[in-house]
């Protein structure tokens, strides 16, 4: 027998885990109405007159207008991209809460990934160093220190 009983059970668990994930991508959630799309889209835009709130959060007049505008465009069948373009054209780029992916602004998407990769690379390097540290030998300084302490000790004992 190649597989032990234990590893068969583990393979079954793994299979169940993965198939549950696959199933989850296939089943349909609750129907996505136009309202749900409006809500999702309105979270992507800043309310121009309020301090840092999104259109979804704010009850300001402009926010309500934008929500109504998004609603109308969704009902007319516009795509998310078309709606974004229209809103940015009507207001300003600062309305779009998704930083664009090009130029200096786009660095915001790249820098965290670089930092993360760098962090884990550093962690791997540190692990290696610590492993090597296990075979570290005493330096000349260490030996000298111990010798001097020993001399002190024996001096005390003899006096």
């Amino acid at each position, binding site marked *: 027998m190649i597989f032990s009983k*234990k590893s068969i*059970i*583990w393979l079954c*668990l793994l299979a*169940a*885990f993965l198939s*549950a*994930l696959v*199933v*989850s*991508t296939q*089943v*349909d*959630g*609750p129907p996505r*109405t136009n*309202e*749900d799309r*409006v*809500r999702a889209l309105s*979270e*992507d835009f*800043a309310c121009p007159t*309020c*301090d*840092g*709130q*999104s259109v*979804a*959060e704010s*009850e300001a007049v402009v926010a*309500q207008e934008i929500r109504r505008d998004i609603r109308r465009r969704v009902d007319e069948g516009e795509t998310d991209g078309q709606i974004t373009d229209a809103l940015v054209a009507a207001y*300003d*780029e*600062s*309305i*779009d*809460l*998704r*930083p*664009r992916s090009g130029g*200096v*602004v786009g660095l*915001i*998407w790249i*820098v*965290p990934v670089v*930092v*993360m990769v760098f*962090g*884990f690379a*550093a*962690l791997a390097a*540190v*692990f290696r160093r*610590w*492993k090597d*540290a*296990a075979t570290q030998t005493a330096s000349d300084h260490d030996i000298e220190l111990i010798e001097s302490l020993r001399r002190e000790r024996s001096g005390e004992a003899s006096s």
Partner: protein
Amino acid sequence: MHVLIGYGAVSLGFAGALLGIGTTIVSLARKQPHLMRSVRVYVALIAVAAVVATVVMESALLQHDFSVKYVAEHGRIGTPVLFTIATLWGALEGSILLWALILVGYLAIVAWRFRDRSDDPMVGWALLTMLVVTAFFFGLMLGPANPFISVANPPDNGPGLNPLLQNNVFMAFHPPMLYLGYVGFTVPFAFAIGALVTGRVGEGWLVETRRWTVFAWGFLTFGIVLGAWWSYETLGWGGYWAWDPVENASFLPWLTGTAFIHSVMVQERRGMLRVWNLSLVCATFALTILGTFLTRSGVIASVHAFSESGIGPILLGFFAVIVAVTVGLIGWRGDALRSVGKIDSPVSREGAFLANNVVFAAFAFVVLLGTVWPLIIEAVNGDRIAVGNPFFDRMTMPIGFVLLFLMAMAPVLPWRKASGEVLGDRLFWPVVAGVGAMVASLLLGAAGWAPVLTFGLAGIAAGAAIRQLVLATKRQGWRGLVGRTNGGMIVHLGVILIAVAFAGSNAYLRQAEFSFERVGETKEFAGHTFTYVGDDELVSPDGRIDNQVLVEVDGTIERPALTLFPFAGRTLGTPSTRGSLIDDVQLSVIPTNEEDEKAVIRVTVQPLVRWLWIGGGLMAVGTALALVPGKRRRPTAPTSAMPTSDNPIDVDPPVVAV
């Protein structure tokens, strides 16, 4: 009168802090520990001053003494007493006063707690650090953030607190909790500085401050959860976290503080990560000051921010000093900070803690970057851009998954080294629980890989935490629920509930707007029925007018309203929330321009929201239990012996002898 006594008290506190600083320096420089006795007298003086200043301000608020500028600008006759008291932390100057009061509280407790060790230079330096921070905040109140300014011609009444802050009782409790957390990190920071200056960078300072750190962390957690709850109940759009700069400012020290709470265990156990832990503690404290700067300087627009003021540059300067001092000290002590321990295998408890730290640090970096990016871009090329929910959601989701995965694995990993067999045995039931959670969620109608993966990992993590608790209680009875490791597992369970609630409520949120034309009209949405019953008007004693829309939800009448605050000239929505453990139904009234008879209601149906607050409560309970001393091992116990399957995981990490 109030102005005179209040300003006098602030001046006295400032003078006391300066005298304390001077005496501590002399005592440390001349090695005269008996001088520290007089430092304790100055600390008592500062404490009296802070209490008097706070009492005077509250008295001015409650008596509506409009000759005090702060009261004239933020007080109002007719505001309910609770909110009048809470006005102290409703605006900039008062919030600095509350900060100073809490700081002095911590200072006094530290001075009293370490009264028998005044000859210890580390304690001396720690007190000195705390006194400097205290002097800084009293200095702020003497000048740029003076709460006690007199008004030449006092008005008859004031405008009152921002109505948004008066609409929910949570607002009265959320800031003090948060401040207890923020300010509490001053204590470990002060001891870290003490350790660096005296060169005693071993594990001693960690042991001294461990409970203080956990205490502060617990209040910060509780404060953040209360803030989310307030936001959810008040704003009425179905959200509880918006990655707003002010929310981020409270989240940043929480992230580094959480990383620290985990990585100290590696240092205590294995003597490693000295530089890293010192840096984390200092970063956490520095981030609380940076947060204070972001929320009080007007550089960042946020609904939660305080009004613009001149204290921004001063706070930024203080932040820069903290960073410079800590970086300088750590560089200076570089030699002594070399790690003495070693690591055997990445697949071990310490390996998981290290990965946890990298991920938490990256998390903090992402949040900080997203918060300040608009400022950076504006400085670089003058563009005005916005960074919001979509950025934070996309970047933090993978981080959340990695953290959840680590939370599932770490509690079953032994220290030093794990063998496949041990892991297989320990992980079996947790993984069964995780797969069970996934299948159950699919049967209940869950869809989409992200929430289902969350439920699966959450199931494993919960299994791992419960396994630890069961083993500990079997062995030690009720003591198996206290102590750092076991309390920590209860905190984990709270985090898991929050993760599940977060995934469920975000992924399955349903929202709709109904306009009801006539009474009796019924709508169906997301499995609930809504019937328009009528309107009502309610005038509260404090003058606010609730224009309620009565809607029957599944047989119960709900009263969402538009609330008019005549004294502030503002109308705000007062949503109604009806919840169960399964889902929340939130109704808010949408203001209509037309004078017609229809009522427009926004309905938000969100599953599992209630578990966020339950999870937050569980985190608080777990933190409290973690503070109760668990079973101590004798220092001679062979705690670092190679664990085997019949000598399972360590119940309580040892206290390293200093």
